[in-house]
Structures are given as C-alpha cells and as structure tokens.
C-alpha cells in the first residue's frame, strides 16, 4: 500500500484528522508539552503493539491502529499529565486490544478502556485539550469538519446521529427537569469532549457494528448509558462507560449470532467455509 493509498484509507483519515487536532490544539494553547506526550504515547503504543503481536503469534500488520490509540489518549489526557503516565495509559489500552478479544477483534474500544483505567489507577486529569475545550468556541468548526470527514469515510453516520440525537434529547430533558448538571454537559469543555468522543472514538470500526440498524442501537445504548451515568454521578467517566457498555452489547450480539448459526448448522466453521473470519 502506498502512502497515498493509506491516506485515503479509514485509518489514514483518522490519523490525519487527529494529527490536525494535535497541531491545532498545540498552536492554540501555545504550549508544546502535549506534542511531547503524544510522541511518547504513540511510540509506546506502537512498540507495545509490535511486541504483543509477536508474543501472541498474530499476523504482523502495520501498527497504525496503535498509533491512533496513542494519539487519542494524548489528546484526551491533560497536558499537565506526565509523559510517563500518558505512555503507560496507551500501553494499557493496547494490552486490552490484544487480550480482551473475541474472534481476534478487540471487544472494547482500546482508547476508551485505557482512559477509564487511567482515571481509576492514576487519577489522571482528563482535559480533552485536543477537542479544543479551552480554546474559543469557533474552533469547534475544525473539530466538526475532521469528525464528519472521518464519519463519512468509515460509513458511521447512522451511529453518530443516533448517539448525538439520544444524548442531546436526554440532556434537554435533564435540563428541563432540573436533574443532573446538563448545563455543564452542553458547554465547553464537556460538549467538545462529547463531539470528539462521538466522532473519533465511537466510530472505531473494529469495536462498533457495520450494519445501519445495529449502528443505531449501538449509538442509542452508548448515549443512553453515558447520559444516565452522568445524571446519577456526574464526573468524567460517563462517556467511556457508555461506550464500553455499547461495546458489550455489540460483543453479545456477535456471540448470539454465532450461537444461532451453529444451532441451525452444526457443521458451521468445521469446513473452513462460511466462517466469520472470512467475512
């Protein structure tokens, strides 16, 4: 695959969009520490991916997915976090990608899993600086442009619209009802976090469904669970918890499908034809 072809691939789009966010946010905040953290996170994530792939005797592939995970983590964790914590978080994320798997695919979105662990283990401050949460409001246009390009490329509009539709309706209801802290969630930096999350993390192809109907259910589950956690507990983990529950729903659905096919056709998978791996 040439560089030109790679740039046009889904991973190429995501990498380009996230790199643009990194550059834009660094220029906007006027500090380079975030770039240093990103280099550490991407470097360690790629290294961990190569090592774990070798240890688990998986087919060697370019570690561009690991680089994306590292970039997302660096853009979410505060620039005041140390480079070591950022890098370890990225390694934890890559570990989940290799060990929490079903049919050789990660069950949980690696970046979301790593970031959730990072809050629990290291108490990391998550600023979502790469989503321009501390920059002027107009900068959200840059975020939306990159996010829409990625969503279009990975064919995830139904999921993205279902997610944001559910999320905004629930926040509106919370606001009208005076429950939870909907005012914060609808304003920077939290709205920037939700946009970054919905456009760049939720759309991860290996951990989200491909079919439009399943995408809609996935988006509704992730948004509903996230908004509920936010209404009850506030904090910062609600988006991750929503996505991980969405991932669990997707995993459960995939398992039920396989079980159903096996019951209908006991020879499924034995001949090597018609297995999930060939789809």
């Amino acid at each position, binding site marked *: 695959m040439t560089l030109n072809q790679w740039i046009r691939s889904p991973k190429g789009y995501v990498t380009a969009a996230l790199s643009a966010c990194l550059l834009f946010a660094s220029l906007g905040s006027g500090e380079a520490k975030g770039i240093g953290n990103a280099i550490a996170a991407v470097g360690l994530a790629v290294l961990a991916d190569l090592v774990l792939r070798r240890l688990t005797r998986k087919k060697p592939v370019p570690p561009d997915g690991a680089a994306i995970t590292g970039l997302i983590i660096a853009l979410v964790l505060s620039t*005041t976090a140390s480079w070591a914590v950022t890098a370890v978080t990225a390694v934890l994320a890559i570990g989940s990608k290799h060990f929490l798997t079903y049919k050789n695919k990660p069950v949980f979105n690696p970046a979301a899993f790593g970031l959730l662990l990072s809050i629990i283990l290291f108490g990391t401050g998550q600023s979502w600086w790469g989503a321009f949460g501390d920059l002027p409001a107009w900068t959200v246009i840059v975020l939306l442009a990159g996010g829409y390009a990625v969503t279009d490329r990975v064919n995830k509009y139904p999921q993205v619209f279902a997610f944001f539709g559910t999320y905004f309706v629930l926040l509106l209801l919370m606001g009208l009802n005076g429950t939870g802290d909907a005012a914060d969630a609808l304003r920077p930096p939290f709205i920037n976090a939700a946009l970054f999350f919905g456009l760049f993390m939720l759309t991860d192809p290996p951990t989200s469904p491909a079919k439009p109907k399943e995408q809609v259910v996935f988006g509704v589950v992730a948004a509903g669970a996230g908004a509920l956690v936010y209404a009850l507990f506030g904090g910062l983990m609600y988006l991750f918890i929503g996505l991980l529950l969405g991932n669990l729903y997707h995993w459960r659905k995939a398992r039920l499908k396989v079980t159903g096919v096996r019951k209908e056709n006991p020879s499924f998978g034995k001949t090597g034809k018609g297995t999930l791996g060939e789809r």
Partner: protein
Amino acid sequence: MAKMNKKWVVLCSAALAAVYTAGYAATETEASLQQPAAQQIQPSPQAQGSPSAGSGSTAGKSTKAGSIRHTYKDGTFTGMGSNRRGSIQVAVTIKNDKITDVEISRFAMHYSESDVVGLPGEVLQKQSAGVANVSGATYSTEAFRGAVQQALDQARNA
C-alpha cells in the same frame, strides 16, 4: 453498504443542532448561576467573595480601636474558585492574623474530591493560598487556590 444520502446527513445534522440549541437555551439560567465565565478562572475577589453568614461566625469583626492593627479581620470567610470544569467553595477561619481552619464547604468539580482533600492542611501549614499543584488534579488545585485567595482578600483589612 451504501453511504447515507447527503440530504439526510444535512437534515439529521440540522435536527441535532436544533435539539442541542434547545438544551442550551433550557439550561441558560442554570449555567449562569453555576458556571462562571471563563475569565473567572482566577476570580476577582471583589466580584465573588462574601463573608460567611454562618452561625457562630465572627465574620467581618475588625480589631478594636487602639489595639495593634491586624492585616486580616478575625472570623470565617468564604471564597469561591472556579474554572470551566467546576467550582470549589472554601471557608477560611482567621484569628489574630493566623489561618486556623480551612474547610472545603462546596465541591462542584468534575473530578474526585479526594484529589484535593490534603490541600486545606497545606494552607494551614503554609499560612497562604499558594498550595503546590496536585499531580493529576491541576484544575481542582487552581480552583481551590483561587477560592482560598478570595477568602483571604475578603478578610483583609482595608
């Protein structure tokens, strides 16, 4: 899988924008009460602070005429520190120019309160608002520092 028609993308985006705007408008009052403007990350003491009206407080009590003039009034004073990630209110008690007690009276940050639970002790030790940054809790530390400084500014004798 066929791509979504661009017309539908525009329509859905417009619908989302409408729901978001409705939510934003519905929470405007709440936001103006809870979420101070961005420039209040290091709040102006005159704009925000207020002496505590709590029972048993001696807030605002000046030293008696003829005695040594103190830098601070005796009493309990509250201060608020805030940024885009929430706010912290503290109650600072002062006696004879010495900070004798610091209490986080309201914690409304989106981070864990346990991150900053040691900061009141640090204020007592340093006798100033200049607490060191807590690793991983920079925003909470900033808000706490601002809150204590505001309380001290309120207590300062003119």
